[in-house]
């Protein structure tokens, strides 16, 4: 059907008597308005490609490029929002502040350290889970297992963050449990520390690691592992020589996703972090919410964070991902 349409074309179809289709689509196609407007565009291959590309392009521009462009524009203005009697001009001063004032570098560095550590921990925690679901669980049970793992993610980020607060607080579930079984007599201050922030981040973002890893590991043919075992390879050798290389794409994808998410995460560090875990997004928000009007500086810092995070992720993907090649 597709070939006949492409070969015969709209002109031929127009010349022939209109077939008596019963579907809504056919009624639209055979209508006069369609024939003289959209039909003429859809007639050509180029027109169809433009139509198909148009929607995703509009989507990308409106929801991704547009806001970033707006942020870029604000970051170059001397004043924003524009107030009565104040003139605004384009300047690079807002970017210069970051490089001039060392105090803003520390939170950015902290963000990168936390994101890197959280990514590494998430990989270590989630990899065995993904392997278990992809290779140990029977094929008919995998969907159920995945579904069970995904259930917590149906709740929003804030709800899950508050659940961590309820768990780790001085009067939270964990401290109560430890006290009830007699391990402690005074609560351990777990909340508002690097531990609670790391714990919360890993809990919140592990989905981004789980799915790419599961997808990669699930595709590894079991015969490879059987063959390696027949040839005398132990479990660790099989993991190092077969599973790890063949799941590399999933590791790279998962790590990149988790790292980029961790860098930009805002509410969780605000709610779970302590006085020494102030990360860069909180610094940026201070420019937008503070009493002084510093939207342009906040926008410039946001773009600095975006660019450095993307460069870091690209370098990681290049170094670890490398060029596509066969595993054997």
């Amino acid at each position: 059907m597709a070939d006949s349409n492409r070969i015969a074309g709209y002109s031929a179809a127009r010349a022939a008597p209109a077939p008596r289709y019963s579907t809504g689509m056919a009624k639209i196609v055979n209508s006069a308005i369609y024939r003289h407007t959209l039909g003429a565009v859809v007639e050509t291959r180029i027109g169809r490609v433009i139509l198909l590309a148009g929607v995703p392009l509009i989507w990308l521009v409106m929801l991704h490029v547009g806001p970033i462009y707006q942020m870029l524009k604000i970051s170059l203005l001397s004043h924003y929002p524009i107030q009565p009697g104040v003139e605004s001009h384009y300047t690079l001063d807002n970017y210069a502040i970051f490089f001039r004032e060392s105090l803003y570098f520390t939170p950015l560095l902290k963000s990168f350290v936390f994101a890197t550590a959280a990514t590494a921990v998430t990989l270590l925690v989630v990899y065995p889970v993904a392997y278990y679901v992809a290779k140990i669980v029977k094929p008919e049970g995998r969907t159920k297992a995945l579904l069970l793992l995904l259930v917590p993610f149906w709740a929003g980020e804030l709800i899950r963050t508050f659940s961590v607060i309820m768990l780790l607080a001085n009067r939270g579930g964990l401290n109560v449990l430890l006290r009830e079984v007699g391990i402690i007599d005074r609560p351990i201050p777990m909340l508002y520390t690097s531990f609670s922030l790391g714990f919360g981040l890993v809990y919140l973002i592990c989905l981004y690691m789980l799915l790419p890893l599961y997808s990669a590991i699930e595709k590894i043919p079991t015969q490879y592992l059987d063959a390696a075992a027949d040839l005398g390879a132990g479990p660790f050798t099989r993991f190092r020589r077969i599973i790890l290389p063949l799941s590399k794409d999933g590791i790279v994808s998962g790590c990149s996703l988790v790292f980029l998410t961790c860098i930009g995460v805002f509410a969780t560090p605000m709610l779970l972090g302590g006085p020494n875990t102030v990360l860069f997004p909180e610094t940026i928000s201070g420019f937008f919410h503070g009493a002084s009007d510093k939207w342009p500086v906040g926008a410039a810092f946001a773009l600095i964070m975006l660019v450095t995070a993307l460069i870091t992720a690209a370098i990681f993907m290049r170094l670890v991902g490398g060029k596509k090649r066969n595993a054997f």
Partner: protein
Amino acid sequence: MSDKFETNRRTALKFLGTGAAVLAVPYIIRPRPAWADNGVLNVTTYDKFLPQEFVEKFQKDTGIEVRIRLTDDQGKQYNLLTAEGANPSTDIVTVAGHRYTQFINSKLLQPLDTGKISNWKNLNTAYQDAPWARVDGNLWGLPILAGYEGLARNVDYVKDAPSWEIMFDPQYKGQTSYIVSDFMTIVMQYLGHDGDFVTYVDKPDIAQKATNEARDFLIKNKDMVRKYYDAGSEVQQMFINEDIYLAHSWSGPAAKLIMDGHPIQLSVPKEGTFGFCYTLNVVNNAPNAENAYKLLDAILASPEVGAAMTRQSGYSSTMNGVGDLLDEREKLASTLPQEEVDRIIFFSSVNRDMKNEMIDRATAEVKAA
């Protein structure tokens, strides 16, 4: 099977239709624009400031739909209102008295016409023409709730706290909390400086020196802090979970804990503190200004509304007759001994730009340290 994607007329149309539908979803599901409808009123205010029962009754009595947009920060309101310019999407904002000049100088508010508020007489006389409420000869808002920055403590663990010094007592290491920018002004007072910057007009060097001293003091005592918080609900949560025993807190959230029966006490230490008043203000070019006046009038119609506001927010009401409606615990939570009341100085709107600039920077430095 070929993996080449073939386009034809039918697939192109299907994709186009689906894509257009997806792109149109935000337009379809979004609420009708407020400025296009006379039957609505858009209010930007803090959580729990407007009692739900009052809002429902107002809607029923007037047929005006009240759309509440929550805020937790004066800066957010100011920036969003400024960004919207001459076409604001809100009719009423909730401004703190000491931020008046910032909003007024940017022409974001319209002067209040008290002639349109028939129940104006029900406002406590102390607030009807308070010095801070009149700028450029005009009144700018309806005062609804008053509060102060107090020292909150868990009395099960901290028996007495006559001075702010207790916030730096090693005995309570890792058990205190505060909003850095707000506590900075208190620390400046504690160190003998002017935390409100009123005396620093045209004296930026002295102001900077005083700010730096407070900043360095907070950095030196950073290990006393369990968490820097931002919203009242956070400090409430920390007290309930016993993560902290001491905090610098707005009176509202702490008083609410007392009303709810938690072992919290709120006081004004000997070095003093700052008070503030929240007002409802009609926005300049408000699309539904007449509806806004109807709401302001309805708020003042009955002390029951003021009492409900106090019960919900913990702040003291500005309306006549509210005290008679509160029970003993509610009165206890929102009342201070006279000697402590005397230590409260209302924030001034003088020299705010200098203060904001220096405090914001010092706050970032404390957090980054």
